[in-house]
């Protein structure tokens, strides 16, 4: 019944990825993935929220009465998001202004309360923490992939405005791949976000189907690869 640590990692990053498989939190995912820096910023904030909320929910799992557990989770998540919002306002003010309403809206990200209810409330603190971290990283990974895709297509850059996230030396991180006057505007607009998301999901399903097609060789490889990963982590 209880998943192993390997399974927690594998689920969060790939098999049960909140962005690509559960399709949770699509609103911030699609709205904020216009550039890579925005995506990283929101990804970090969401990951922190997931990690902290999973830990806290797991800590009180024996004390909260089942009748009132959902309001308790909401309060916990709201407090954490408020703290993160204040922290971002203090230290990453430029990014805070760009992300705007989507930082407070992390509260409503279904992935977070979903993990609290489905996982953290039934597992020990370390396992809940690992799950929160891996789900957050999986979500961040999708955000970054989508952000990179849309930024390259839309304005021909990578890591534009990196100074908002990394301070002054971030100015040097921006890559200009081609002149931005010919940017593919559609990629930056909402329909482009939906299309890019669809393509990412299709790519994931295609990769999965490739692994399923040749079980004899590839299963061993994935098994060894994922067994090795917890040690590395």
């Amino acid at each position, binding site marked *: 019944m209880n998943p192993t640590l390997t399974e927690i990692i594998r689920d969060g990053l790939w098999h049960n990825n909140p962005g690509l498989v559960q399709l949770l939190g699509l609103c911030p995912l699609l709205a904020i993935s216009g550039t890579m820096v925005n995506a990283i910023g929101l990804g970090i904030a969401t990951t922190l929220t997931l990690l902290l909320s999973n830990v806290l929910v797991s800590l009180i799992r024996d004390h909260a009465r089942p009748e009132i557990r959902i309001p308790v989770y909401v309060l916990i998540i709201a407090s954490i998001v408020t703290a993160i919002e204040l922290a971002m306002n203090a230290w990453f003010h430029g990014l805070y202004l760009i992300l705007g309403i989507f930082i407070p809206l992390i509260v409503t990200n279904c992935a977070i309360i979903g993990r609290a209810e489905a996982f953290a409330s039934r597992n020990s603190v370390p396992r809940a923490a690992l799950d929160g971290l891996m789900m957050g990283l999986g979500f961040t990974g999708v955000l970054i992939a989508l952000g990179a895709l849309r930024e390259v297509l839309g304005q021909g850059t990578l890591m534009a405005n990196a100074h908002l996230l990394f301070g002054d030396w971030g100015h040097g991180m921006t890559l200009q791949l081609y002149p931005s006057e010919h940017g593919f*505007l559609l990629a930056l607009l909402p329909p482009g976000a939906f299309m890019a998301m669809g393509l990412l999901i299709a790519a994931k399903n295609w990769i999965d189907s490739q692994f399923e097609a040749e079980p004899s060789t590839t299963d061993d490889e994935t098994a060894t690869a994922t067994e090795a990963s917890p040690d590395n982590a």
Partner: protein
Amino acid sequence: MRFRTESSPHMIPAHSVGGVMQQVLMALVPGTLAMAWFFGWGVLVNVVLAVLFAVAFEAAIVAARKRPVMATLGDNSAIVTGWLFALAVPPLTPIWVTLIGIAFAIIVAKHLYGGLGYNPFNPAMVGYVVVLVSFPREMALWPAPDTLSEMSLGLGQTLQTILTGSLPAAMDWDAITRATPLDAMREGLGAGRTVSEITTNPLFGTFSETSWEWIGNFFLLGGLYLLFRRIIHWHIPVAVILGVAIPAGFFWILDPDSFASPAFHVFSGAVIIGAFFIATDPVSASTTPLGRILYGAGIGVLIFVIRTWGGYPDAVAFAVLLMNMVAPTLDHLTRPRIFGRERRGPPPGDGHG
């Protein structure tokens, strides 16, 4: 003596898909030549490029889907898609814009949905809207019709412009491009001038601009040929044109200074080619008689609404795509009575279907 029993269908359709598309292509020729007469070589170069790209993408994606390539290319639908796309974009559109638009039309709008017959949206219009939304600068460069422009580009110069995306030396875009009648009307009304002031401009002919009127006439000729050959039915084109003209006429009668005449609306931009060639796409349009009328009327009204109050000067592509979304519902709601049956349920006196 043996009598062989044939199973249905007993009546073989008069037209194959490839044959229908061939007729459509033939019907497009006069309008295309008229456009080339007024707007120069660019129209023809674009048609050739877009058709080549469309066929190449179609072949590639069909091969990738492991379907028979030659049989699919034989239905000629990719050629029609490329051709219509080329007529929609400005004649000096850079080659890479055409490439991106056609790629979207064939790969995303057509084959990701399952290929010809499964696409809910008109592929050529999807491709056009993608480039229209993405590259507003390139999509705004309509050259002045040759009869009015002082400079005109030869074939070589046109090719150079399209392939490199920049004009030959000693020419600039301001000298050879000009607002289309719809742009002029839109900007003029926005600047507070009246319709009669705008149309006193020598560029305007009887209804709209001379060149656009004649292009419309020649597409109308092609459309009538399609009607005559029964490739298309009258419902959609008539409904589209009335759908534009009736609301336009209503507002024009109320306030002829602020609203252009219905004739201007019908003979400007893409209404004629849209009514006969784009809205009648057999795959993405409604298929029942009443459904076709509602579908066409919806397109017409949307064209008028978006032109008058929307953000773009012309709206045929947007209107067609919006109504494509409604078409399956229209088909469902307007199913005709099956012969021998009542409107709902089984035939009279028979409990079984």
